[in-house]
């Protein structure tokens, strides 16, 4: 019946209103639009649909991201392991350092273009960007804090209540608002302005080697690392033997499906030259050795990706050209952007 439909739609709208804050005194934040780069696919889910992006929300999220007090001993912020100059990965570290010199279980992923990801973490265990921070915040080997303590610290601070009011309408500080603010910051980090992007826009030209490397890339790598994201965000076994110490089976831990054994999320190759070492356990430090793995090092197993049934066949010259091309994916307009800096 029509009336029931209207009633139900009113209830749905009412519910949506709640999540964008309560601006009872009428002072709204400065809403900003998330811009999809021209020619890019739209994200399949709008991560800001129930978390409307605003300048105040973004700035609050950034402040939280750089705040050491979110960790148990006050020494580690999100930025401690997610360093902007490393495309928000941990520079030169296979595993990152958490509380009391403990190591993380896996290599810290680079953070950019998260809006296009429906699952986060190497095993895809995170189904929504807003709840991701709960994992490092409470992990005993990382920031090792409790959600209660984090919120207590924010409430006692002289600056945060005002910032929460500016972003969400009241000085109330709760986990939902903190997590939504963080998502407004991390979700806004887009990398789409590397030399490669400029070439495609006609604003720059590849060198001869880079041009060759691009062709080699398209012929050999683009099935798992398609443009423009340079990942398809799927889970694949790319031929590495299991880490005997960690016994990390990747996606299978989440799905309990044997077919997912040793499958990990395909990382983006954007900024690959600054986000070494590579793979879920950071076992490879040089991009040359990654390419070498695909040429001569693929380990067979029941779940090995079918696309890797045959090894990569390229000459040494072509390997170097491929590396020249991968260098063009470094986007300093993101890694050095003051907007994302502390």
């Amino acid at each position, binding site marked *: *019946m029509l*009336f*029931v439909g*209207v*009633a*139900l*739609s*009113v*209830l749905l*709208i*009412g*519910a*949506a*209103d709640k999540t*964008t804050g309560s601006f009872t005194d009428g002072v*709204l934040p400065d809403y900003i639009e998330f811009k999809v780069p021209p020619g890019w696919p739209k994200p399949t889910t709008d991560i800001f649909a*129930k*978390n*409307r992006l605003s300048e105040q929300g973004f700035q609050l999220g950034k402040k939280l991201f750089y705040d050491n007090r979110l960790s148990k001993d006050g020494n580690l912020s999100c930025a401690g392991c997610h360093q902007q100059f490393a495309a928000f990965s941990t520079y030169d570290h296979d595993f990152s350092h958490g509380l009391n010199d403990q190591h993380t279980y896996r290599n810290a992923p680079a953070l950019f273009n998260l809006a296009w990801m429906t699952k986060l973490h190497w095993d895809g*265990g*995170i*189904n*929504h*960007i*807003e*709840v*991701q921070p*709960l*994992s490092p*915040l*409470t*992990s005993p080997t990382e920031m090792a804090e409790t*959600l*209660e303590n984090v*919120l207590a610290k924010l409430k006692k601070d002289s600056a945060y209540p005002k910032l929460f009011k500016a972003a969400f309408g009241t000085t109330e500080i*709760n*986990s*939902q608002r903190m*997590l*939504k603010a963080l*998502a407004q910051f991390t979700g806004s980090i887009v990398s789409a302005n590397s030399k490669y992007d400029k070439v495609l826009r006609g604003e720059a030209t590849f060198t001869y080697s880079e041009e060759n490397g691009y062709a080699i890339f398209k012929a050999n790598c683009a099935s798992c690392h398609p443009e423009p994201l340079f990942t398809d965000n799927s889970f694949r076994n790319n031929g590495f033997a299991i880490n005997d110490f960690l016994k990390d089976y990747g996606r299978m*831990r*989440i*799905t*309990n499906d044997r077919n997912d054994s040793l499958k990990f999320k395909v990382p983006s190759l954007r900024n690959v030259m600054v986000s070494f070492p590579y793979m879920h356990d950071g076992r490879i430090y040089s991009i040359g050795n990654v390419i070498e793995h695909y040429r001569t090092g693929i380990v067979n197993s029941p779940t090995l990706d079918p696309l890797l049934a045959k090894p990569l066949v390229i000459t040494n010259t072509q390997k170097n050209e491929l590396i020249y091309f991968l260098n063009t994916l470094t986007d300093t307009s993101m890694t050095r952007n003051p907007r994302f800096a502390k």
Partner: protein
Amino acid sequence: MVNKSMMKNKLFSIPVLLFFFLPGHQLNKNTVSKNGGTVNISFINTVNGRLLELNTGSYTNPFAETYTISKFKYYISHVSLAAASGSIDENESYHLVDAANNDALHFSFPVNTGSYQSLSFMTGVDSLHNVSGAQSGALDPLNDMFWTWNTGYIMAKLEGSSPQSKVVNNKVEFHIGGFMGPYQVLKNIVLKFPPGKTLIVKEGGSSEIIIEANIDSWWQQPNDIRIAEHPVCSTPGPLAKKIADNYSKMFTIKDIINN
């Protein structure tokens, strides 16, 4: 894009809702009249035939294993009352029943006047709300009922210790979750009111439904769960489903009081 037009729609629809609350109108879902009453739902948690005593009570399961209980929490959602002419759903229906907190053992919501035959609810949090990001109230991750590594809610939690448990600190730890796939643990519970006990909601009245949640049902029927074999369940999967299949029987209507 979002806020202004939504505010306009909300104001618009209030007159529409009032319009069809005319007397004698057919009962529809979610159309709660101003002339209704209140239903209060309260839970009493029992084990071995007596009220649960956290930490101090000593209990025995059907396999002669003894145990104490330090935590017992579970989500109740999508609460609905059925009458002959239709049903009434509670709005924003998410509750965390927590044996450690007296205030978390009951909740109430407005209901149209009338006579109701059964109560239904879901144990756990529906799959949509498991993938909807950061939430508040009963669904706040602060409630310690949310997995951070495999994001989704813990639908029910039973913790304690037992000499039959061979893991650290003799702990018994059942964190039952999983919202999708063959091992999902969400259950729809329908409790028909016993003969002679009907829920009758009067105008301005307050009726109470007392539900017993019996922890004894966690251990058997259809699946034998022995502490010695399974002291811990902390991920979604077949074991969690077995335990959820058992505890889906734990609810019975203890009493209905109409005021």
